[in-house]
Protein backbone atom coordinates (compact mmCIF):
# COMPACT_ATOMS: atom_id res chain seq x y z
CA UNK A 1 0.00 0.00 0.00
CA UNK A 2 2.82 2.34 0.95
CA UNK A 3 4.60 1.44 -2.24
CA UNK A 4 1.49 2.23 -4.23
CA UNK A 5 1.15 5.62 -2.55
CA UNK A 6 4.80 6.49 -3.18
CA UNK A 7 4.50 5.37 -6.82
CA UNK A 8 1.38 7.50 -7.34
CA UNK A 9 3.11 10.51 -5.78
CA UNK A 10 6.10 10.06 -8.09
CA UNK A 11 3.85 9.82 -11.14
CA UNK A 12 1.97 12.96 -10.09
CA UNK A 13 5.26 14.86 -9.52
CA UNK A 14 6.59 13.80 -12.92
CA UNK A 15 3.38 14.91 -14.50
CA UNK A 16 3.65 18.29 -12.79
CA UNK A 17 7.24 18.74 -14.02
CA UNK A 18 6.27 17.88 -17.60
CA UNK A 19 3.39 20.33 -17.55
CA UNK A 20 5.63 23.02 -16.12
CA UNK A 21 8.51 22.51 -18.55
CA UNK A 22 6.57 21.89 -21.70
CA UNK A 23 3.43 23.39 -23.06
CA UNK A 24 2.85 26.59 -24.98
CA UNK A 25 1.61 29.41 -22.83
CA UNK A 26 0.81 31.26 -26.02
CA UNK A 27 3.85 33.58 -25.59
CA UNK A 28 6.45 33.42 -28.41
CA UNK A 29 10.03 33.80 -27.11
CA UNK A 30 12.03 35.60 -29.76
CA UNK A 31 15.82 35.58 -29.70
CA UNK A 32 16.87 38.88 -31.29
CA UNK A 33 20.25 37.53 -32.38
CA UNK A 34 18.80 34.38 -33.94
CA UNK A 35 16.08 36.23 -35.85
CA UNK A 36 18.54 38.87 -37.09
CA UNK A 37 20.91 36.12 -38.27
CA UNK A 38 18.07 34.32 -40.03
CA UNK A 39 17.12 37.52 -41.83
CA UNK A 40 20.77 38.15 -42.73
CA UNK A 41 21.45 34.65 -44.01
CA UNK A 42 18.04 33.93 -45.50
CA UNK A 43 18.04 36.84 -47.94
CA UNK A 44 20.61 37.95 -50.50
CA UNK A 45 21.76 41.51 -49.89
CA UNK A 46 23.64 43.81 -52.27
CA UNK A 47 25.58 45.42 -49.42
CA UNK A 48 27.95 44.27 -46.68
CA UNK A 49 25.82 44.67 -43.57
CA UNK A 50 27.64 45.82 -40.45
CA UNK A 51 26.92 44.89 -36.83
CA UNK A 52 25.65 48.04 -35.12
CA UNK A 53 25.73 49.11 -31.48
CA UNK A 54 22.64 50.02 -29.49
CA UNK A 55 23.79 53.65 -29.24
CA UNK A 56 24.18 53.87 -32.99
CA UNK A 57 20.83 52.17 -33.59
CA UNK A 58 19.06 54.59 -31.23
CA UNK A 59 20.65 57.49 -33.04
CA UNK A 60 19.62 56.14 -36.44
CA UNK A 61 16.01 55.64 -35.46
CA UNK A 62 15.85 58.61 -33.10
CA UNK A 63 14.58 56.49 -30.20
CA UNK A 64 15.55 56.59 -26.56
CA UNK A 65 17.75 53.81 -25.19
CA UNK A 66 15.34 53.69 -22.24
CA UNK A 67 12.84 51.79 -24.43
CA UNK A 68 15.31 49.11 -25.51
CA UNK A 69 15.90 45.87 -23.60
CA UNK A 70 17.97 44.15 -26.27
CA UNK A 71 18.65 44.57 -29.98
CA UNK A 72 20.57 43.23 -32.95
CA UNK A 73 21.05 45.53 -35.92
CA UNK A 74 22.91 45.08 -39.15
CA UNK A 75 23.29 48.38 -41.02
CA UNK A 76 24.43 49.15 -44.55
CA UNK A 77 27.88 50.43 -45.49
CA UNK A 78 26.48 53.54 -47.16
CA UNK A 79 26.26 51.80 -50.53
CA UNK A 80 22.58 50.90 -50.09
CA UNK A 81 19.56 51.39 -47.87
CA UNK A 82 19.57 47.77 -46.66
CA UNK A 83 19.06 47.18 -42.99
CA UNK A 84 18.05 44.56 -40.42
CA UNK A 85 17.04 45.46 -36.89
CA UNK A 86 15.40 43.22 -34.31
CA UNK A 87 14.53 45.14 -31.16
CA UNK A 88 13.23 43.75 -27.90
CA UNK A 89 11.49 46.65 -26.21
CA UNK A 90 11.11 46.88 -22.45
CA UNK A 91 7.33 46.87 -22.72
CA UNK A 92 4.46 46.73 -25.17
CA UNK A 93 4.02 50.47 -24.67
CA UNK A 94 7.66 51.03 -25.65
CA UNK A 95 7.13 48.94 -28.78
CA UNK A 96 4.23 51.23 -29.72
CA UNK A 97 6.68 54.13 -29.61
CA UNK A 98 9.54 52.38 -31.41
CA UNK A 99 7.49 51.06 -34.32
CA UNK A 100 6.36 54.51 -35.55
CA UNK A 101 9.97 55.69 -35.28
CA UNK A 102 11.03 52.90 -37.63
CA UNK A 103 8.21 53.73 -40.05
CA UNK A 104 9.28 57.39 -40.01
CA UNK A 105 12.90 56.34 -40.59
CA UNK A 106 11.98 54.27 -43.65
CA UNK A 107 9.80 57.05 -45.06
CA UNK A 108 12.48 59.69 -44.60
CA UNK A 109 15.19 57.52 -46.17
CA UNK A 110 12.89 56.69 -49.07
CA UNK A 111 12.48 60.40 -49.74
CA UNK A 112 16.27 60.87 -49.66
CA UNK A 113 16.86 58.04 -52.10
CA UNK A 114 13.97 58.90 -54.43
CA UNK A 115 16.00 61.01 -56.85
CA UNK A 116 19.43 59.59 -55.94
CA UNK A 117 18.83 55.84 -56.23
CA UNK A 118 15.32 54.60 -57.15
CA UNK A 119 16.28 50.95 -56.54
CA UNK A 120 17.08 51.67 -52.91
CA UNK A 121 14.01 53.90 -52.60
CA UNK A 122 11.96 50.92 -53.73
CA UNK A 123 13.49 48.69 -51.05
CA UNK A 124 12.58 51.29 -48.44
CA UNK A 125 9.06 51.50 -49.80
CA UNK A 126 8.77 47.73 -49.30
CA UNK A 127 10.41 47.71 -45.87
CA UNK A 128 8.99 45.03 -43.60
CA UNK A 129 8.22 46.55 -40.19
CA UNK A 130 6.40 44.32 -37.73
CA UNK A 131 5.64 43.93 -34.05
CA UNK A 132 5.98 40.37 -32.73
CA UNK A 133 4.45 39.24 -29.50
CA UNK A 134 3.73 42.74 -28.30
CA UNK A 135 7.21 43.98 -27.45
CA UNK A 136 9.50 42.90 -30.31
CA UNK A 137 9.82 45.29 -33.26
CA UNK A 138 11.52 44.16 -36.46
CA UNK A 139 12.54 46.13 -39.54
CA UNK A 140 14.06 44.57 -42.62
CA UNK A 141 14.98 46.61 -45.71
CA UNK A 142 16.01 44.28 -48.49
CA UNK A 143 15.35 43.33 -52.07
CA UNK A 144 13.05 40.47 -50.99
CA UNK A 145 10.28 41.70 -48.72
CA UNK A 146 8.26 38.48 -49.16
CA UNK A 147 11.13 36.35 -47.88
CA UNK A 148 11.65 38.71 -44.95
CA UNK A 149 7.98 38.39 -43.99
CA UNK A 150 8.23 34.62 -44.24
CA UNK A 151 11.25 34.49 -41.94
CA UNK A 152 9.70 36.85 -39.39
CA UNK A 153 6.39 34.98 -39.31
CA UNK A 154 8.16 31.73 -38.37
Amino acid at each position, binding site marked *: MKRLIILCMMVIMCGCFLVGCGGDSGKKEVDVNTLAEELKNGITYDDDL*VDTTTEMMCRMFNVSKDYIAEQKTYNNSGASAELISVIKCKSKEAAQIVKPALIAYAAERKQM*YASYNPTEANKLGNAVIEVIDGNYVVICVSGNAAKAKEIISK
Partner: protein
Amino acid sequence: MKRAYKKRKRRYKVNYTMLIGLIAVIVMAIVCIVGLVMMLNLGGKDSDEESSSQTQQQTQAQSTEAPSQVDIKNLPDQPQDYTCFNNSAFVGDSRFAGLLNNTQLLEPDFYCEVGVNVSTICKQNVIKLEDGTKVNLATAIAQGSYDKVFIQLGINEVGWDNIDYFQQCYEEIINTIKVKQPTATVYAISIIPVTELKDAEGTYVNNVNVARFNERIKAASDKCGAVYLDATPALCGDAKVLPIGASNDGVHLNKANCCKLLNFLKVSTQ
Protein backbone atom coordinates in the same frame (compact mmCIF):
# COMPACT_ATOMS: atom_id res chain seq x y z
CA MET B 1 11.08 -16.56 11.54
CA LYS B 2 8.66 -15.66 8.75
CA ARG B 3 7.81 -12.38 10.46
CA ALA B 4 11.48 -11.47 10.84
CA TYR B 5 12.07 -12.29 7.18
CA LYS B 6 9.10 -10.14 6.12
CA LYS B 7 10.37 -7.28 8.27
CA ARG B 8 13.85 -7.49 6.66
CA LYS B 9 12.25 -7.67 3.18
CA ARG B 10 10.12 -4.56 3.86
CA ARG B 11 13.10 -2.63 5.20
CA TYR B 12 15.12 -3.58 2.09
CA LYS B 13 12.34 -2.26 -0.27
CA VAL B 14 12.05 1.08 1.59
CA ASN B 15 15.88 1.58 1.37
CA TYR B 16 15.79 0.85 -2.40
CA THR B 17 13.26 3.66 -3.01
CA MET B 18 15.25 6.09 -0.94
CA LEU B 19 18.39 5.11 -2.86
CA ILE B 20 16.77 5.99 -6.19
CA GLY B 21 15.63 9.35 -4.83
CA LEU B 22 19.09 10.04 -3.43
CA ILE B 23 20.76 9.23 -6.76
CA ALA B 24 18.34 11.55 -8.58
CA VAL B 25 19.12 14.42 -6.20
CA ILE B 26 22.88 13.85 -6.56
CA VAL B 27 22.63 13.80 -10.38
CA MET B 28 20.64 17.06 -10.40
CA ALA B 29 23.13 18.68 -8.06
CA ILE B 30 26.04 17.64 -10.31
CA VAL B 31 24.28 19.04 -13.39
CA CYS B 32 23.67 22.37 -11.61
CA ILE B 33 27.28 22.62 -10.44
CA VAL B 34 28.66 21.80 -13.91
CA GLY B 35 26.38 24.39 -15.49
CA LEU B 36 27.44 27.03 -12.98
CA VAL B 37 31.13 26.31 -13.54
CA MET B 38 30.67 26.54 -17.32
CA MET B 39 28.89 29.88 -17.00
CA LEU B 40 31.63 31.25 -14.77
CA ASN B 41 34.30 30.05 -17.18
CA LEU B 42 32.56 31.68 -20.13
CA GLY B 43 32.28 34.95 -18.23
CA GLY B 44 35.96 34.79 -17.37
CA LYS B 45 36.93 34.07 -20.99
CA ASP B 46 34.86 37.02 -22.29
CA SER B 47 36.52 39.49 -19.94
CA ASP B 48 39.93 38.03 -20.75
CA GLU B 49 39.30 38.35 -24.49
CA GLU B 50 38.04 41.92 -24.04
CA SER B 51 41.07 42.98 -22.02
CA SER B 52 43.49 41.29 -24.43
CA SER B 53 41.88 42.94 -27.46
CA GLN B 54 42.04 46.32 -25.70
CA THR B 55 45.73 45.71 -25.01
CA GLN B 56 46.19 44.72 -28.65
CA GLN B 57 44.45 47.90 -29.83
CA GLN B 58 46.58 50.04 -27.53
CA THR B 59 49.70 48.34 -28.82
CA GLN B 60 48.61 48.90 -32.40
CA ALA B 61 47.74 52.53 -31.60
CA GLN B 62 51.19 53.03 -30.14
CA SER B 63 52.85 51.36 -33.09
CA THR B 64 51.24 53.78 -35.59
CA GLU B 65 51.78 56.93 -33.54
CA ALA B 66 55.18 57.81 -34.91
CA PRO B 67 54.29 60.43 -37.54
CA SER B 68 57.74 60.75 -39.00
CA GLN B 69 57.99 56.98 -39.57
CA VAL B 70 54.48 56.31 -40.87
CA ASP B 71 54.21 54.67 -44.28
CA ILE B 72 51.02 56.16 -45.72
CA LYS B 73 50.72 53.37 -48.27
CA ASN B 74 50.76 50.63 -45.64
CA LEU B 75 48.43 51.86 -42.95
CA PRO B 76 46.58 49.29 -40.85
CA ASP B 77 42.95 48.53 -41.68
CA GLN B 78 41.92 47.73 -38.13
CA PRO B 79 40.21 50.16 -35.72
CA GLN B 80 42.63 52.29 -33.70
CA ASP B 81 42.24 54.80 -30.91
CA TYR B 82 40.13 57.53 -32.48
CA THR B 83 39.79 59.88 -29.52
CA CYS B 84 41.73 62.41 -31.60
CA PHE B 85 38.49 62.94 -33.53
CA ASN B 86 36.31 63.57 -30.47
CA ASN B 87 36.26 67.28 -31.19
CA SER B 88 35.90 66.96 -34.96
CA ALA B 89 33.13 67.32 -37.50
CA PHE B 90 32.77 65.26 -40.67
CA VAL B 91 30.92 66.90 -43.57
CA GLY B 92 30.10 64.80 -46.59
CA ASP B 93 28.07 62.52 -48.77
CA SER B 94 27.24 58.81 -48.61
CA ARG B 95 30.92 57.86 -48.42
CA PHE B 96 31.22 59.64 -45.09
CA ALA B 97 27.80 58.32 -44.06
CA GLY B 98 29.21 54.87 -44.76
CA LEU B 99 32.28 55.70 -42.68
CA LEU B 100 29.98 56.48 -39.75
CA ASN B 101 27.98 53.25 -40.25
CA ASN B 102 31.11 51.14 -40.46
CA THR B 103 33.13 52.67 -37.64
CA GLN B 104 30.29 53.92 -35.41
CA LEU B 105 32.22 56.87 -34.02
CA LEU B 106 29.75 58.53 -31.68
CA GLU B 107 31.88 61.38 -30.32
CA PRO B 108 32.55 63.36 -33.51
CA ASP B 109 29.64 65.04 -35.27
CA PHE B 110 28.74 63.73 -38.70
CA TYR B 111 26.96 66.11 -41.05
CA CYS B 112 26.61 63.69 -43.93
CA GLU B 113 23.82 62.47 -46.09
CA VAL B 114 23.29 60.13 -48.98
CA GLY B 115 23.10 61.90 -52.32
CA VAL B 116 24.18 65.39 -51.23
CA ASN B 117 26.49 67.45 -53.41
CA VAL B 118 28.50 70.66 -53.04
CA SER B 119 25.48 72.70 -54.10
CA THR B 120 22.64 71.10 -52.14
CA ILE B 121 24.61 70.86 -48.90
CA CYS B 122 24.77 74.66 -48.70
CA LYS B 123 21.54 75.64 -50.35
CA GLN B 124 19.08 73.01 -49.11
CA ASN B 125 18.10 71.53 -45.76
CA VAL B 126 19.58 68.10 -46.36
CA ILE B 127 21.57 67.45 -43.19
CA LYS B 128 19.67 65.66 -40.44
CA LEU B 129 20.54 66.68 -36.89
CA GLU B 130 20.24 64.38 -33.87
CA ASP B 131 16.82 65.77 -33.02
CA GLY B 132 15.58 64.84 -36.49
CA THR B 133 15.40 68.35 -37.96
CA LYS B 134 16.94 68.95 -41.36
CA VAL B 135 19.18 71.94 -41.91
CA ASN B 136 21.76 73.28 -44.34
CA LEU B 137 25.51 73.25 -43.78
CA ALA B 138 25.75 76.68 -42.17
CA THR B 139 23.23 75.74 -39.49
CA ALA B 140 24.64 72.24 -39.00
CA ILE B 141 28.28 73.23 -38.57
CA ALA B 142 27.28 75.83 -35.97
CA GLN B 143 25.99 73.08 -33.67
CA GLY B 144 29.30 72.57 -31.96
CA SER B 145 32.81 73.90 -31.51
CA TYR B 146 35.40 71.90 -33.42
CA ASP B 147 39.16 71.86 -33.78
CA LYS B 148 39.03 69.90 -37.04
CA VAL B 149 36.46 69.76 -39.81
CA PHE B 150 36.83 67.13 -42.54
CA ILE B 151 35.11 67.47 -45.91
CA GLN B 152 34.49 64.49 -48.19
CA LEU B 153 32.41 65.53 -51.20
CA GLY B 154 32.61 65.19 -54.95
CA ILE B 155 31.80 61.66 -56.06
CA ASN B 156 28.19 62.63 -56.87
CA GLU B 157 29.43 65.59 -58.93
CA VAL B 158 32.12 64.05 -61.14
CA GLY B 159 29.66 63.98 -64.04
CA TRP B 160 29.01 67.72 -63.89
CA ASP B 161 29.76 69.69 -67.04
CA ASN B 162 30.45 72.92 -65.20
CA ILE B 163 33.57 72.14 -63.20
CA ASP B 164 34.04 75.84 -62.43
CA TYR B 165 30.70 75.84 -60.63
CA PHE B 166 31.87 72.79 -58.67
CA GLN B 167 34.96 74.65 -57.50
CA GLN B 168 32.92 77.72 -56.67
CA CYS B 169 30.54 75.65 -54.51
CA TYR B 170 33.45 73.91 -52.81
CA GLU B 171 35.01 77.29 -51.96
CA GLU B 172 31.66 78.36 -50.50
CA ILE B 173 31.66 75.26 -48.29
CA ILE B 174 35.16 75.95 -46.98
CA ASN B 175 34.36 79.63 -46.37
CA THR B 176 31.08 78.77 -44.62
CA ILE B 177 32.90 76.41 -42.27
CA LYS B 178 35.67 78.93 -41.60
CA VAL B 179 33.13 81.61 -40.68
CA LYS B 180 31.21 79.33 -38.31
CA GLN B 181 34.34 77.62 -36.93
CA PRO B 182 37.08 80.26 -37.06
CA THR B 183 39.52 78.30 -34.90
CA ALA B 184 39.08 74.95 -36.65
CA THR B 185 41.46 73.53 -39.24
CA VAL B 186 39.47 72.60 -42.35
CA TYR B 187 40.65 69.51 -44.21
CA ALA B 188 39.43 68.87 -47.76
CA ILE B 189 39.82 65.18 -48.55
CA SER B 190 40.35 64.16 -52.14
CA ILE B 191 37.65 62.21 -53.93
CA ILE B 192 38.61 58.57 -53.45
CA PRO B 193 39.04 56.71 -56.75
CA VAL B 194 36.65 53.95 -57.72
CA THR B 195 37.55 50.34 -58.50
CA GLU B 196 38.62 49.18 -61.93
CA LEU B 197 35.31 47.40 -62.40
CA LYS B 198 33.35 50.52 -61.60
CA ASP B 199 35.64 52.53 -63.83
CA ALA B 200 35.04 50.13 -66.70
CA GLU B 201 31.24 50.55 -66.54
CA GLY B 202 31.61 53.59 -68.76
CA THR B 203 29.53 55.96 -66.64
CA TYR B 204 30.50 59.42 -65.45
CA VAL B 205 31.75 57.81 -62.24
CA ASN B 206 35.26 57.06 -63.47
CA ASN B 207 38.78 57.77 -62.31
CA VAL B 208 39.58 60.28 -65.05
CA ASN B 209 36.76 62.47 -63.76
CA VAL B 210 37.82 61.81 -60.17
CA ALA B 211 41.31 63.10 -60.94
CA ARG B 212 39.95 66.21 -62.73
CA PHE B 213 37.69 67.15 -59.86
CA ASN B 214 40.42 66.51 -57.30
CA GLU B 215 42.53 69.18 -59.00
CA ARG B 216 39.71 71.64 -58.40
CA ILE B 217 39.33 70.58 -54.75
CA LYS B 218 43.04 71.23 -54.26
CA ALA B 219 42.71 74.60 -55.97
CA ALA B 220 39.74 75.53 -53.77
CA SER B 221 41.68 74.45 -50.65
CA ASP B 222 44.73 76.52 -51.58
CA LYS B 223 42.58 79.56 -52.32
CA CYS B 224 40.49 79.40 -49.13
CA GLY B 225 43.08 78.27 -46.61
CA ALA B 226 42.00 74.67 -46.15
CA VAL B 227 44.39 71.72 -45.99
CA TYR B 228 44.11 69.34 -48.93
CA LEU B 229 44.52 65.69 -47.96
CA ASP B 230 45.17 63.27 -50.80
CA ALA B 231 43.78 59.94 -49.56
CA THR B 232 44.59 58.10 -52.80
CA PRO B 233 48.01 56.69 -51.79
CA ALA B 234 46.63 55.51 -48.44
CA LEU B 235 43.75 53.61 -50.01
CA CYS B 236 45.11 52.70 -53.43
CA GLY B 237 48.86 52.40 -52.89
CA ASP B 238 50.84 53.20 -56.03
CA ALA B 239 47.84 52.60 -58.28
CA LYS B 240 45.28 55.37 -58.64
CA VAL B 241 42.50 52.80 -58.55
CA LEU B 242 40.61 51.53 -55.53
CA PRO B 243 41.44 47.83 -54.98
CA ILE B 244 38.59 45.45 -55.83
CA GLY B 245 38.30 44.10 -52.29
CA ALA B 246 38.02 47.57 -50.78
CA SER B 247 34.42 48.10 -51.81
CA ASN B 248 31.29 46.11 -52.41
CA ASP B 249 29.92 48.41 -55.11
CA GLY B 250 33.17 49.92 -56.36
CA VAL B 251 32.49 53.27 -54.69
CA HIS B 252 31.67 52.93 -50.99
CA LEU B 253 34.42 51.65 -48.72
CA ASN B 254 34.00 48.50 -46.70
CA LYS B 255 34.68 48.50 -42.99
CA ALA B 256 38.39 47.70 -43.26
CA ASN B 257 39.00 50.52 -45.69
CA CYS B 258 36.91 52.94 -43.68
CA CYS B 259 39.31 52.19 -40.82
CA LYS B 260 42.23 52.72 -43.18
CA LEU B 261 40.82 56.10 -44.21
CA LEU B 262 40.38 57.11 -40.58
CA ASN B 263 43.91 55.93 -39.81
CA PHE B 264 45.15 58.08 -42.70
CA LEU B 265 43.26 61.10 -41.36
CA LYS B 266 44.65 60.44 -37.90
CA VAL B 267 48.29 60.34 -38.94
CA SER B 268 47.86 63.24 -41.36
CA THR B 269 46.36 65.60 -38.82
CA GLN B 270 48.50 64.98 -35.76
